[in-house]
């Protein structure tokens, strides 16, 4: 997957777990939780969806890598490049 495709994947997942939110103005370098109503349980949904959809396991120590859209793409790119 390309960076753009990974970005779309993440936004798709967030759209599912935060269905009341408008994601059109989301800032890619600002933590999701600073601009969306997401709590720790929602965050775990992102981890679960990556596991279910792509078989990607995000260790707990790496959760902080998924804080922003940019950091998520950077973290996932090497793990999803062959998908």
């Amino acid at each position, binding site marked *: 997957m390309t960076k753009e495709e990974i970005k779309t994947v993440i936004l798709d997942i967030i759209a599912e*777990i*935060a*269905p*009341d939110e408008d994601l059109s103005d989301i800032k890619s370098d600002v933590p999701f939780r600073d601009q969306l*109503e997401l709590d720790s*349980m*929602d965050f*775990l*949904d992102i981890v*679960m969806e990556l*596991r*279910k959809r792509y078989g990607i396991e995000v260790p707990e120590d790496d959760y902080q890598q998924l804080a922003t859209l940019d950091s998520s793409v950077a973290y996932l790119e090497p793990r999803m490049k062959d998908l």
Partner: protein
Amino acid sequence: MPGLTANSVNSARVPSQERVVITGVGLAAPNGNSLAEFRQNLLNGKSGIRKFDVRYMGEVIAGVCDFDPLKYQKKKELRRGTRAGSTAIYCAQEAVADSGLDFDSLDKSRVGVFLGITEHGNVDTEKQIYEIKQYDYDTRYVSHHYNPRIVANNPAGEVTLNMGITGPHYTLGAACAGGNIGLIQGYQMLLLNHVDVALAGGVSETIHAFGAFASFRSEGALASHEDPTKACRPFDRDRNGVVVSEGGCVFVLERLAGALARGARIYGEVVGYAMNSDAFDFILPNAEGQARCMQLALKMAGLSPSDVNLISTHATGTPQGDPQECQAIRQVFDGCPNTYINNTKSMIGHAMGAAAALELAGNLPSFEDQTVHPTINIDNLDPDCALDNLVFNEPRKVGRIDYILNNAFGMLGINSTVIVKRLENSS
């Protein structure tokens, strides 16, 4: 009925601070999303039973609700919570709105939520097992939302989260007596002065899992009929089992003194109740235990059987169960010409934990319209169930109704009876 005063209330056995009244009703039934709509459909004999697809079972007959959950919840809350939680929220919000309480100014630490359930958690347990089956039963795919969804207090807890209630909340596991037991718990918490407002009733999401349908079928107790609306037929000769339904009903309960002080509309006063156990069988009901339960409730209310004008029966439409309740009613109410009898399940099926609360709610308007709604689908009345004054197929205008007795029984021999009294309008 506005305009009530303490003096207008008959038989002031106890101080008004120790009397508990119903001042709000919120409900979700297979044939109505408000008391007015529900009552009208009950009077019209309109069934809410239809065909419904259930995983592993395929098409079954069930009572399905169509309330708008987004009226009080965001999409994300719906995604996170349970169907029972969502139903309870809808009912609780509607009940509070109906009560006229200024909820925003209430001390939320003095509000409690007490909901009867038949069971809770099966829906999400079944769903999780189905989900992990797609991943070769790898338990890493069990949702982190599973625990908060299946804890037994979930439906009541979701109400507190949604409404900012910080008083006590829990559910009461009471099989199919749950709706009565929830109401009784609310009454008791008011008398103990642990709360000032009790949101009490029952809720069920049972139809969203295959288990109840499959188990009733294995017991030979799952209703079947070509026409779903005719499947639930208590007291009819050809009844053949239970129609499982979802639903909810929440009452606002307050002390009479408070309700009078704020000029609340009062649906009725809870004047008696009883709960007991058959100690007889896992599944089979027992007329002796049921009769004792009704007698205990009458005793608490200080009533004679002939004082009761309407008995809302529990009968579910099983061949074995209905005659037991009829026998119990004959035993207690023999020679009571002004005691009428009906059944609600014929139109809404068996709403499990919500059943008793819904069935009481649907009969409360009879205090005002003096009419008993019918039980439907009686084409051939079973002689064993041919109770005097059974109101069937057509509603009956009967004159003044002062006391309603609401029965609810369940597996493991749990019995419950609640008696509600009409309060006089001072005008």
